[in-house]
């Protein structure tokens, strides 16, 4: 199931590996809601369309996408900074 961790530096890590659309986008929104303004969220997904959907959905809402990186074959990490205001 989806997991949410907080790292020592305050970054939230949302692990939605195993989930297909639309859950990665929905849970990313919920995780962002738990962050303070300007906070960092890492989303781990193994669903290829989510590499495009999740960044686009959060950008639409004014958050900043810092990058999408390959973690290992078929798994990606999307780094999001929550909007300031």
């Amino acid at each position, binding site marked *: 199931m989806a997991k949410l961790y907080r*790292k020592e530096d305050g970054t939230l890590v949302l692990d939605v590996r195993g989930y297909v659309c639309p859950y990665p986008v929905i849970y990313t929104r919920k995780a962002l809601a738990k962050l303070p303004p300007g906070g960092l969220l890492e989303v781990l997904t193994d669903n290829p*369309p989510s590499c495009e959907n999740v960044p686009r959905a959060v950008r639409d809402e004014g958050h900043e996408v810092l990058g999408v990186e390959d973690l290992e074959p078929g798994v990606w990490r999307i780094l999001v900074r929550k909007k300031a205001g």
Partner: protein
Amino acid sequence: MARSEARFPEHLAGLLRRSLLSRRGWPEWLGGILLGLINILFFAWAQKPFTIYSGFLNWGRHLYADLAGITSLGAAVSPLADKTSVGDIGLFLGALLAAVAAGEFRLRTPARLLDYVEGAMGGLLMALGVVLAVGCNWGGFFSAITALSLHGYLMFLGLLAGGFLGALYVEWRARREAEELELEVEEVVEVAEHPKRGASAPLLAAVALALPALLAWRMASVGGGFYAVILFMGMAVGVVIQRSRFCFATAFRDILRGGGEFRRSVRLQIGIALGILVGATGTAVLKYMGYVDPTAYVKPAGWSNVLGGLLFGLGMVIAGGCASGSLWRAAEGHVKLWVALAAAVLSYAPLRHLIRSAAPWIYGEKILLVSSLGWAGGLAFIYATLTLWILFLLYLDYRRGSRHGQAV
């Protein structure tokens, strides 16, 4: 000189990774137009449009007859000598090839037990929907309107309703699970810092290339190459669908409900509409010129198509993939969609047999759009309805955009 020659393969790989194999995927409008074009070629070659479920019928009949000795569901030719079945195999292999080439293949086991149940339920609903709508999202909708048959429009209405219901289900599940999304204060997630290199990548690539080559060689040696060409066209569909993430489930799930991926559903719907525009134009030429029978793939149109579309639309959202989407996601390694495929293949043949023999009266009449409206009128009807639909989609997007603008 030798140095630059040695680097060319890497240069080429980098170029591909930034263009055709990019993580962003191809734009949806391009995917739709390419699918429309392939559909015309497929129609000209096979005398039928690209569809999916009669391949599942072939597989189901084989499974019941060969493994359980049940022959009452009808006889079936070899899966390698059935146009639709070969196209399906091609779609699967094309999606596999594209996923492997883009580094997106991975065995993905579902997060929860519920996903297996959803896969099975979704597959079952889709099979029942196909029996009633006389086709899936291809044979009952995309390829149906392309073939100038009225039944495609009726399933479209049902898909909108089914997608809406599916969105309500998704919201319910997400609400329920969100309560369990508790914050655990743990230091690190260990997967994060040590990227594994894909040791099995060359092996996967070899399999993804060898499978279609072997099949095509076998078909060419048996059937004179006819089915090998169908296999290649199916692969083209698979590559396009995987690369442009051409997901009918998303297109119908979030369009009316305005769900999480609303913007993407708008782009997908526009891609679908463009594909139908291109495909219908080409098919009209083929039918008018007599390359294919004008009544080819004109199917019964009535209330059963609407109801079938509703059940299919709900099923594809629950399963996480439509007919083509199930094959594509299964090829990417999603176990949930393997379950959906198995459920669809096992239930389609019996459901079809049962309903067609017990209640044949549920089906409407076969209506070819151009027979009542003329060739120009029929095409004009398709152009006008699709243009209006695209305008409506752009309006929805505009309204949502301006509302968000005010809110921020």
